[in-house]
């Protein structure tokens, strides 16, 4: 049973502490006797290490130890990658964890990217560790570097890993190449486009941090770290990197200051602080700097794509073929290879029914920071290329881009819909969301605005981004076929205390999505009690049931249902007991507003609290019933869920300066039922801003040696308050049939169509100036140059 608690815009209960500065993030932890660690990072994109002289550093004040890759040899294993593109056959031995090219904790003989840790210095204070790290002298012989997939795949290119000939991690494909090529060959209209979806740096405001603690009496390790996946990281660290018993490692994720994908990865500092805490007998803390983050935390996007779209003269899309070169960086990050292939490749048909489709992704190692997830990853890259080429197609046949979209969208009566590339869309009315966006944008009047803008000397452009985004990763067996090593279910535990208070513990971990509030709403709704009686616990492997972590918009849509199912079991047990105490058959007992009652029998009732107490006492329970209410459930969904929507951007460009203004931004989403609109709107707004960052200003740049030219916030722009317009937002609501709440992922989906909408708007505006296509980011200088070049 549900009450109005689900769907209410309750305030986030953790926010008051944040506002007072009382939230303890990982870097705020202070353990007694704690030491501080600092990395010495590579200064080269690719170089041989000829020697590391630590003598001077060791003499610096406060220094306790300095370690290099040599000191760790045979003690710490390489960092595992757990997403193998193309799938794995079996989880029975031999296990497929030994991924070719896996990165060491500290560099061994060669550095392969600009921020790779080469040595670690531990000192009494952070300042002393920093000062000493500067004194570690590393002798390098620079090697030729490759920074783009095309370079890395070229004949005779420098090789990163002996075990990976040709630098190719995977050539991954989906769809039907033959049929698609045939459809393209006989099509009335064929449009092609090359697009570079630039590399970005996710930049959560909190840089990563880790504190390792070791108890010599119990021989137990505790890791406090900025991790989205405490359970998963515990498994990988104990079994695969440190080689210690599972039971000896506890991982705790303190409150996390934003992540957007980056903190779901395993990083060298995690095993290292644990290893050092044990060797030194004192807790060891490491807190990254912004520059360190930008040089070593996984980066996003970076696909060089070519797409071919074929269709009829009257606007029916008949085929789509996409080839993408994904820049994986120097090492396979924890799940990077899967993000770069499946999440992108299977998504390129977008919300459209395209009868013939094929996508291939070349996932390639280069001398850049390892690639990982960034909000909306894979799906945003797919949406951008598809939506761009669709606009070019519409222009080619002289049709309205909105009309072409509406004509090709999967209609509501075709669900479940197989997209031909491996996804089966669950439910929706894609056209309805687009129509709503058009209505909110006053689409039919935009031509008038265009003329008005022209009179003011401005170029106006309109761009649509329609999307569907696979979320809720996902059914475990389905993910086996994708090559994910590990289950992808979620879990929940509900314990009802004798006084009727409820402790609910989830396996996932919040990184700023208000889980303690929104999950309490699910529990309270299902139990028919006030949310204030429910406390949510998370993020501690010793307390929480197993869970796979927060990524792919799965916490709420996979973990939420686990909670609901646990709550339903609690009520079912209470109902059986209540019927027993009331002396009636179970089917005569009704439950509403916290009370079990028997209709027609005045006074025959028991409250939720009565039953909590009765089950705690355990007196005179129905025969065979166990005392107490303590339920753990695991939810492995039958399939993914697929939120969708449409964005529409209107931009004005100053032809003389190249300056761009977003004059209207409309966003319509369908994420199924919304548990807390205040929180979900916040996710939408933040996601759109994140997408605008990529569209307008963000780009990680490397020079040909692999040096990162944008390693701080003065050279890498992020959107500030005055860069972000107001958004006009609305939602439609189509439940997903794939979980008992009907919910769909909401945390990152609003990023997915932003770059598409803005790119289309900018290119629409620049069409008049003679520009067919321009890649992001749309800085004034870039736009100005494009206009000048087009004019010749």
């Amino acid at each position: 049973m549900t009450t109005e608690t689900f769907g209410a815009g309750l305030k986030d209960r953790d926010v008051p502490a944040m506002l007072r500065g009382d939230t303890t993030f990982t870097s705020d932890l202070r353990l007694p006797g704690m030491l501080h660690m600092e990395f010495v990072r590579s200064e080269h994109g690719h170089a041989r290490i000829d020697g590391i002289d630590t003598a001077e550093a060791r003499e610096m004040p406060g220094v306790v130890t300095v370690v290099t890759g040599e000191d760790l040899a045979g003690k710490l294993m390489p960092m595992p990658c757990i997403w193998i593109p193309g799938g794995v056959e079996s989880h029975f031995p031999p296990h497929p964890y030994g991924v070719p090219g896996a990165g060491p904790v500290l560099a061994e003989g060669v550095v392969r990217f600009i921020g790779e840790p080469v040595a670690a210095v531990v000192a009494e204070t952070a300042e002393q560790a920093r000062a000493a790290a500067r004194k570690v002298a590393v002798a390098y012989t620079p090697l030729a570097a490759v920074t783009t997939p095309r370079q890395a795949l070229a004949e005779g290119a420098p090789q990163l890993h002996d075990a990976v000939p040709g630098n190719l991690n995977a050539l991954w494909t989906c769809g039907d190449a033959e049929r698609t090529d045939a459809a393209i060959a006989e099509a009335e209209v064929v449009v092609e486009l090359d697009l570079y979806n630039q590399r970005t740096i996710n930049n959560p405001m909190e840089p990563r941090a880790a504190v390792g603690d070791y108890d010599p009496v119990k021989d137990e390790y505790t890791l406090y770290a900025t991790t989205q996946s405490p359970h998963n990281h515990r498994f990988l660290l104990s079994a695969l990197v440190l080689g210690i018993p599972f039971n000896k490692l506890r991982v705790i994720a303190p409150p996390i200051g934003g992540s957007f994908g980056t903190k779901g990865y395993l990083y060298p500092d995690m095993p290292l602080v644990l290893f050092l805490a044990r060797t030194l007998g004192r807790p060891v803390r490491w807190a990254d700097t912004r520059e360190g983050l930008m040089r070593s935390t996984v980066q996003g996007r970076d696909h060089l794509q070519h797409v071919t779209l074929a269709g009829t003269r009257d606007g029916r899309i008949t085929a789509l073929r996409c080839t993408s070169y994904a820049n994986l960086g120097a090492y396979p990050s924890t799940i990077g290879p899967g993000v770069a292939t499946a999440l992108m490749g299977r998504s390129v048909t977008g919300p459209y029914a395209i009868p013939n489709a094929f996508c291939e992704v070349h996932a390639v190692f280069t001398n850049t920071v390892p690639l990982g997830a960034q909000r909306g990853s894979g799906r945003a890259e797919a949406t951008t290329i598809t939506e761009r080429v669709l606009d070019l197609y519409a222009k080619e046949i002289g049709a309205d881009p909105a009309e072409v979209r509406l004509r090709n969208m999967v209609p509501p009566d075709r669900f479940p819909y197989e997209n031909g590339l491996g996804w089966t869309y669950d439910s929706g009315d894609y056209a309805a969301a687009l129509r709503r966006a058009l209505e909110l944008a006053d689409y039919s009047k935009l031509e008038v605005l265009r003329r008005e803008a022209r009179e003011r000397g401005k170029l106006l452009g309109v761009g649509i981004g329609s999307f569907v985004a696979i979320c809720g990763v996902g059914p475990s067996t389905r993910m086996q076929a994708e090559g994910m090593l590990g289950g992808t279910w979620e879990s929940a535990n509900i314990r009802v205390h004798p006084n009727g208070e409820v402790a609910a513990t989830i396996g996932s971990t919040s990184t700023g999505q208000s889980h303690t509030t929104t999950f309490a709403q699910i529990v309270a709704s299902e139990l028919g009690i006030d949310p204030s009686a429910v406390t949510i616990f998370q993020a501690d492997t010793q307390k929480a049931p197993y869970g796979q972590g927060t990524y792919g918009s799965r916490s709420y849509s996979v973990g939420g249902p686990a909670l609901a199912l646990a709550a339903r079991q609690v009520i079912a047990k209470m109902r059986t007991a209540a019927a027993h105490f009331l002396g009636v058959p179970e089917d005569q007992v009704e439950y509403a507003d916290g009370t079990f009652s028997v209709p027609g029998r005045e006074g025959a009732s028991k409250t939720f609290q009565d039953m909590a107490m009765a089950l705690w006492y355990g007196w005179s329970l129905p025969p065979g019933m166990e005392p107490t209410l303590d339920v753990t459930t695991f939810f492995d969904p039958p399939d993914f869920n697929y939120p969708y929507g449409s964005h529409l951007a209107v931009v004005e460009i100053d032809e003389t300066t190249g300056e761009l203004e977003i004059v209207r931004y409309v966003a319509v989403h369908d994420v199924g039922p919304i548990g807390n609109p205040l929180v979900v709107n916040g996710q939408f707004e933040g996601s759109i801003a994140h997408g605008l960052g990529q569209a307008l200003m963000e780009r990680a740049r490397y020079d040909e040696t692999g040096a990162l030219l944008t390693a701080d916030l003065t050279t890498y722009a992020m959107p500030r308050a005055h860069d972000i317009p107001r958004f006009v937002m609305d939602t439609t609501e189509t439940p997903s049939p794939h979980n008992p709440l009907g919910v769909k992922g909401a945390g990152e989906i609003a990023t997915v169509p932003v770059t598409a909408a803005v790119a289309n708007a900018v290119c629409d505006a620049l069409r008049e100036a003679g520009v067919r296509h321009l890649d992001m980011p749309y800085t004034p200088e870039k736009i100005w140059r494009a206009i000048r070049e087009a004019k010749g």
Partner: protein
Amino acid sequence: MRITLTVNGDRVEQDVPPNVLLVDLLRDTCELTGAKVGCDTGQCGTCVVRLGDRSVKSCQMLAVQADGAEVTTVEGLSGDGELTPLQEALWEEHGAQCGFCVPGMVMSLTDLLERDSAPDEQAIRAGIAGNLCRCTGYGAVVRAVQKAVKDKS
């Protein structure tokens, strides 16, 4: 070097090396971890505190430069778990998600409202031009300030 300053009303007397940043003094010596270190270049604003009657990025100042000053950090804004009306409004409008930018944001906005009791939207956005937030997209923060202003008048 020996310095004396007032932090959130408490007198602090401390020997500090000349190269220690104010933010590190606050976080490590005073154990006030509200101010955060989000960057190395003065760009993010997570470290904003009040020094006398102006707000400063405490990562851009040496501790010794604060000798004799009165410093207020986010922990010192209101007493005993209370929230200021601005903080209340930020809570209501969901102006904080992960919370990492929040202490700096609160300090910058408090400063803004002291200088301008009824800022318009542009002034609000300008008032937090030095504070990066990756979570909210700023909309909820702007609405919160507007709410705080409206509630006051």
